[in-house]
């Protein structure tokens, strides 16, 4: 297992990279939306054998609702939140001016084209290029929202992220009950209480096969549900 003793993590990031290019309006909108989402979903946040940290991480979570990314993002401490970019589907988030503004300006989301994946322009390369050596990511390895609340099989992107940047901390996140707050196909939220659990980071083991790693990552998310 790799220890996070990488030079990127110890040296302070260059000031230019951390300074968000977001305007104060977008910044305020982000804070407001995060607060509204927190109140509406009554989210309690738990860190199990894990601590918030500004080191480079990939938060990977089960996907049940459009609110997932917003809730995970807003449940991170502010300093960490500034450095964390949600990964979202371009076909959904670039439709309409409001969504595009939210995704690009407010949440600084990284939009991935799900329909047009090319070999020389793979989403994983794009993500790695965009995060540089300071930013963290929120990803949903299932690819799309589950209908019945079960956690589906993980797509291989997480494995390639870990393989190309083995020092990144992969933090499992479990989102509970948000599918009842805003289920697939609904646009009015019901304010039920939800819970977001962060687990201990994991890394790709030496010689670990792709399917084994993906199954292990999925299990890491599932165990957070019971704990």
């Amino acid at each position, binding site marked *: 297992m790799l220890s996070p003793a990488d030079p990127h993590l110890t040296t302070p990031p260059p000031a230019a990279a951390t300074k968000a290019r977001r305007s104060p309006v977008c910044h305020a909108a982000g804070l407001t939306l995060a607060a509204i989402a927190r109140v509406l979903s009554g989210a309690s946040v738990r860190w199990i054998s894990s601590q918030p940290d500004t080191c480079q991480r990939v938060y990977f979570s089960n996907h049940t609702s459009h609110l997932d990314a917003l809730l995970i993002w807003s449940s991170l401490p502010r300093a960490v939140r500034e450095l964390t970019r949600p990964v979202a589907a371009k076909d959904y988030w670039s439709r309409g001016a409001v969504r595009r503004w939210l995704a690009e300006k407010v949440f600084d989301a990284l939009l991935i084209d799900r329909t047009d994946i090319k070999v020389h322009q793979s989403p994983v390369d794009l993500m790695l290029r965009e995060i540089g050596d300071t930013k963290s990511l929120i990803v949903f390895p299932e690819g799309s929202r589950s209908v019945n609340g079960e956690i589906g099989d993980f797509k291989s992107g997480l494995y390639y992220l870990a393989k190309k940047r083995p020092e990144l901390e992969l933090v499992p996140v479990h989102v509970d009950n948000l599918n009842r707050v805003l289920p697939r196909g*609904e646009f*009015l*939220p019901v304010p*039920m209480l939800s819970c977001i659990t962060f687990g201990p980071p994991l890394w790709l083991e030496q010689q670990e096969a792709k399917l084994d790693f993906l199954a292990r990552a999925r299990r890491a998310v599932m165990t957070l549900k019971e704990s």
Partner: protein
Amino acid sequence: MNDPRTLALIVGVLALLTIVTAVGQFLRRHPDRGLDPAAVRTFNSRIRGWWIMCTVLAAAFWLGTTATVVLFGLVSFWALREFITLTPTRLGDHRALFWVFFAFTPAHYVLVGYDRYDIFSVFLPLYGTLFVLARVAIAGDSKRFLERTAKIQAGLMVCVYCLSFAAALLQLPVATPTTAETPLPGTANFRLLFFLILLVQFADCMQYVWSRMLGRRLVAASVSSNRTWEGLLGSVVSTSLLASALWWAAPPYQPWQAALAGCVVSLMGFAGGMTMSAIKRDRGVTDYGTLVTGHGGVLDRIDSTCFAAPVFYHITLLVAEAAGR
């Protein structure tokens, strides 16, 4: 708030809280008294919860009737979300739940705030029920239809309808028996509400204490493992005694009427506690949430109040009528 009875009540409650806090801290510092440290911790966290409850209530009282009704509305809202979160619902219930949360609950409290007893007393039982039935039917999912609608109705009834009677006490026309001191019109009603909450909390507490001291026979072992017949009896007797001793604080009451109210309040509080235990047991959880430390969820704190409030409201109505005659 400058009439002597309100002042006496506030000072009395503050003194009582200070004493129990001192006792709790003393027990914590001296673990060698042969008491169960877990029980001492529970006791202390309960006291902390009472301080919070008192502070919030005092703030609402100070801000006035509207603020208090809004406060109770928010508590209902939170309790309902705890209730529904624990209740398994299906996708077909989603739209009905949205309107229940954002239309029916606020509308009910608006009616309470405007003192429309004629409408708010039937609004949720009648129109709430009809709406939930029809909306779930229109959503097109007929699986376990009656079971699902009954769950939503039960939540609305307990968390919103019943609790709102506590807030409605503030609007109750109370005939003051002595006209000489002429208290401010609102203060008497605030004291009534405080009287109710004090009795409910005291009854809860006494039930626990008597169960610990004398408890032999469980009421229903499969529902609650700490509610005994001895605890219930002890709580009814001690709450009646406290109520009759405090009759001067609740405007239209005579001592014997206050004792009767105390008896009914502790019986209803017991009923509320048992009901919520049954729901929690069925869902396999110990408490509803984690808002106030050590107090479980909001619903765990207010279950007895929910059941006691409507009965206390109606008893007060009758007593006030009898006094005015």
